């Protein structure tokens, strides 16, 4: 069991609609997206004085260029937080956002702080997968232990598909179900409470008039989910990462842009302002696995997080398992024996997208709102992580 002096409660959680790469947010900066998420959660709890926030912890998986420097500090300042509130950027690739939430919670749990923001942001439109410039250490090839660090994520998914015997058909069916659930979720308004509609502004050159043409469009729903997808279309896609493989663009997560943030407080602050929390932060675990099969990371992380919380897997009512690839998601579901009905009830990254470092914060928002909306008790966010890791965080309805 985790030793702590006080609990951390989530009192607000919001995220932007996820945009497809070069879609909604083609020209929207990641710090602007983050600022919008932060402003949204602060507005939801006006009782809290922003000057009392201890720190803003923000995830970002490829912190360079537009999201380089310290994108969290940048986003916090843009959101209007006082200069006295600091900001830190953390990177654990695909779990960066969850890592940020966990680190923010821990500052409260140790008693050092009473109000914290955990968040994440990522633009894959502006910073491509792997970043703008990769320079590897030549020594990784000298050792079979480190060789897997050179493998692309897609190839590691192929490795998982092969070793865990996940067929192409199963992957495609999983992908289809992800889209079906996401489309249904959007249609019946399940995402409404967590979603912070974003006014996308563009400034383009009107060559004829010589004027700058400004336009604004408010985006409300996740951009990636496709109502028109079917198994035939999915079956036609060719494997991308292995000549005789099974992983396609259709059964892998989409590259996306997005941001999310959660506001956490101690019990003391809850009482002081008579706030109703959405959820309590219960536990977090991160584990390493061989990099060449990074997709099975959650297999190690889930039991570890459950163990720290003193919970059984069956106690979980809602699981956000990041769909990096259908292959690894299915391998994790089957190996852990997760109930498919409880996993991603509103679809996952295959349908709605995976803005790398933002995903953990986005899914935290999804899970805490789901617990409240559906009147459930325990929820979890878990994901696999490049270079061979897995993370899991557990939340309890409050």
């Amino acid at each position, binding site marked *: 069991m985790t030793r702590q002096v006080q609990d951390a409660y989530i009192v607000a959680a919001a995220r932007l609609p996820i945009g497809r790469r070069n879609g909604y947010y083609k020209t929207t900066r990641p710090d602007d997206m983050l600022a919008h998420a932060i402003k949204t959660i602060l507005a939801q709890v006006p009782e809290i004085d922003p000057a009392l926030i201890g720190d803003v912890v923000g995830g970002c998986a490829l912190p360079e260029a537009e999201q380089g420097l310290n994108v969290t500090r940048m986003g916090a300042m843009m959101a209007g937080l006082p200069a006295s509130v600091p900001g830190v950027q953390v990177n654990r690739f695909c779990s960066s956002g969850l890592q940020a939430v966990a680190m923010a919670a821990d500052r409260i749990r140790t008693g050092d702080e009473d109000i914290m923001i955990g968040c994440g942001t990522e633009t894959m439109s502006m910073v491509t997968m792997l970043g703008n410039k990769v320079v590897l250490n030549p020594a990784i090839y000298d050792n079979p232990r480190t060789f897997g660090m050179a493998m692309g994520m897609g190839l590691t998914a192929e490795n998982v598909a092969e070793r865990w015997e996940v067929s192409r058909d199963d992957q495609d069916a999983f992908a289809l179900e992800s889209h079906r659930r996401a489309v249904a979720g959007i249609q019946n308004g399940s995402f409404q409470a967590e979603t912070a509609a974003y006014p996308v502004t563009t400034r383009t050159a009107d060559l004829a008039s010589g004027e700058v043409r400004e336009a604004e469009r408010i985006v409300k729903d996740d951009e990636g989910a496709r109502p028109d997808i079917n198994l035939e279309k999915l079956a036609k896609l060719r494997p991308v990462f*292995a000549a005789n*493989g099974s992983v396609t663009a259709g059964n892998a997560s989409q590259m996306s842009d997005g941001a999310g943030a959660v506001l956490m407080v101690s019990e003391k602050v809850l009482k002081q302002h008579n706030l109703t929390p959405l959820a309590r932060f219960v536990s977090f675990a991160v584990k390493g696995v061989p990099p060449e099969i990074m997709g099975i990371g959650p297999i190690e992380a889930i039991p570890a997080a459950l163990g720290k919380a003193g919970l059984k897997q069956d106690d979980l009512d809602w699981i956000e398992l990041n769909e990096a690839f259908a292959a690894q998601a299915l391998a994790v579901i089957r190996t852990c024996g997760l109930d498919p009905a409880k996993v991603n009830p509103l679809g996952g990254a295959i349908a709605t997208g995976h803005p790398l470092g933002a995903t953990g914060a986005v899914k935290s928002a999804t899970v805490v709102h789901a617990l409240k909306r559906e009147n459930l008790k325990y929820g979890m966010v878990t994901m696999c992580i490049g270079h061979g890791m897995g993370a899991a965080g557990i939340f309890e309805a409050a």
Partner: protein
Amino acid sequence: MGSGGLVRKAAVLGTGVMGPRIAAHLANADVPVVLFGMSPASGIPGADPVQALETLKKTDRGAFVSRERGAYVDTATYEDDLDQLASCDLIIEAIAEDWNAKQDLYTKIAPHIRADAIVASNTSGLSITKLAGLLPDALRPHFCGVHFFNPPRMMALIELIPGAATDPAMLDRLESWLVTRLGKSIVRAKDTQSFIANRVGLFSILAIMHHTQALGLGLDEADALTGTLINRPKTATFRTADMIGLDTLATVTDVQHRTLPDDPWRAHFRSPDWFAGLIAKGALGLKTKGGVYRRVGKAIEVVDIASGDYRPSGTPASDAVTAIMRTRDPVERFAKLRASDDKHAQFVWAVLRDLFHYCAYHLGDIADSVREVDFAMRWGWGWSTGPFETWQAGGWTALADAIQQDIDAGKAMASVPLPAWATARDGVYQDGGAYSPAQDAPVGRSTLPVYQRQLFPDAVAGERFDEGETLHETASVRLWRLPKIDPGIALLSFKSKMHSLEKGVVDGIHEAVALAEADFDGLVVWHKPPFGVGANLAELLDFVRAGDWASVEAAVAHFQGATKALRHAQVPTVAAVDGMAFGGGAEVAMHAAHRVLGLECAIGLVEAGVGLIPAGGGCKEMVRRASELARMRPQRDPWEDIQKAFRNIIRGATSRGAVHAQGMGYALPGDTVRFNPHEVPYVAIKTARSLADAGYVPPLPGRGIKVVGAPGRATLRMELVNLRDGGFMSAHDYLVSDTAAMVLCGGDVDPGTLVDEDWLLGLERRQFVALTQTEPTQQRMAHMLETGKPLRN
């Protein structure tokens, strides 16, 4: 002023197959274009020019030479923008072949056209004189037909058709401009139905249909007999028909039936029942994914004439006819063809006989001379030889007699006799002239000055052009000059097979540079395409098989010395590149001081295909260029260009044309691109002269070349790990690619290390030798030598 400034801006009217593509090619040639169509409000499908242009950009990667050129096609509508026509010097109409539509359009546009603008129709079926009648009198002298072939960028031919009122001087100016600026090959046609190429081409298809049915052959059999076997494209007859669209063919056939009442072959201008049946079923060819042929999985099926059902295709030509067609002497070949009782041989003879008959009968009506007909079929339909040159090669008189005999015997498709001139003459190409019925004598080529830029145009019937004076000649190279163009510029031409870089050629480069430095002002490397296809693998394999690695390394060093000599020669060296420049050929081109490139040349470092890396300075040059470009950037980081070069080299990528080669870094931004490949040697000589006169100074051997070193190689290797472990690349591909990575990164040194050219050449050379020592590379070299195809191992 020459024709260069004839067209500053053009308009293309029409959003069908041709309009947007013609517009694209004008933009390719740096002519801003306005593409006209109808506003979306018209509701007519496909008429919106914005949509048409977008579709073209998405579906036809080859229409534009680069994505950027797309920005130079503006769109406009007849409803709102006709005033824009006033700024256009050339207006090409390419709307549907509908008289009423053309009448409407011409009436609408006429008031907006400048009096000095040229108006041309891309019609393939309507009379130019009649169309001219739709325009005001003042515009008629400036109106003519310019009939492009699809795709307009790739097909050389434009038929240029004067109407009765067309100003001959305008036509000359336009022809000159189309030749040098758009790079097209012009045939002047008379204003008759379908002009020349399609008149003859359609007849050829109808004749083949007729004889296929008459002899009870399959359509796939007919294709086996009317493709490469008789010097025509692989798509032969019915695959070509599928490409054209069966409905289009039927329409044109009907039009000819209607408009050529006196044509003795008129009875044959009808679509056969099986053909009409396909159209009725909606099987129109490639556009409907089924026509004469259809693809079922991996198999290709052909329609059966009798039943109308599809069956497996692939019936080959008979051994008898194949043997006959391999006969070297064409006179003997035709004699055997006529004498054979093989059904396929009889078919081929019948098809050619009726084609010759048709062409001879109509020659005087449709063309000035036989040259126009032969070139129209070569440039417009992709035949390697036209009908008249084929006939003459087969023995004019003997074949004329044979044709007349068949006519008399009722075997030919029409009973009219051959024209008198055909039976009276003993040939149609004589003394450099081509027979003209109007003159009743051979006439020479066009004397327009623009053709003086073509030193070696396409030749017919053994034509020869000025080959200048030989300065030095070996079995592998000829060193010469063309005193009429510039006695001070030496030319080096390779004589090796496919212009491979055999030892004699490499010796020749060394000798040519030495001679040029001693006695000339510049050196041009030129020969007819291909420019060069790489090293002579046979020579290398001899050393390899003998385990004589010192000789392998010496051969590489010898070649490196040759490319170095070209690059650092005291006189300007110009590579005149048309066609393929692969491997060593690319390296020769890359090392010249300047390149003059034919628009469609293909350049690539393709050594990986035979398990090798570029070692004639190809890798060195890419690293040197990357470092040089990096000097202009704030970070001075050559990485991106190294990565790009690496990806091109390991894939053996070759350019889709000269502009693409510039984008790939194999040609330089300042190189000269000529749209007309026939101008390449002339322009190269002039370029060498101009460089020399401007005070040419050769570049010093590169020093201070910044390399990305071991971490760069490690990063490139990451791509290889994924390709290999993903099953896209064999273990040997991985080794070859990793070797290329090592050389391109400058060796396993710290990033940012400064090296010189010799360091890089040393890496290239040693790694090349190391690869030749591996068995899979040896197998690849041997396989390529034996089969001409790459081995995947």
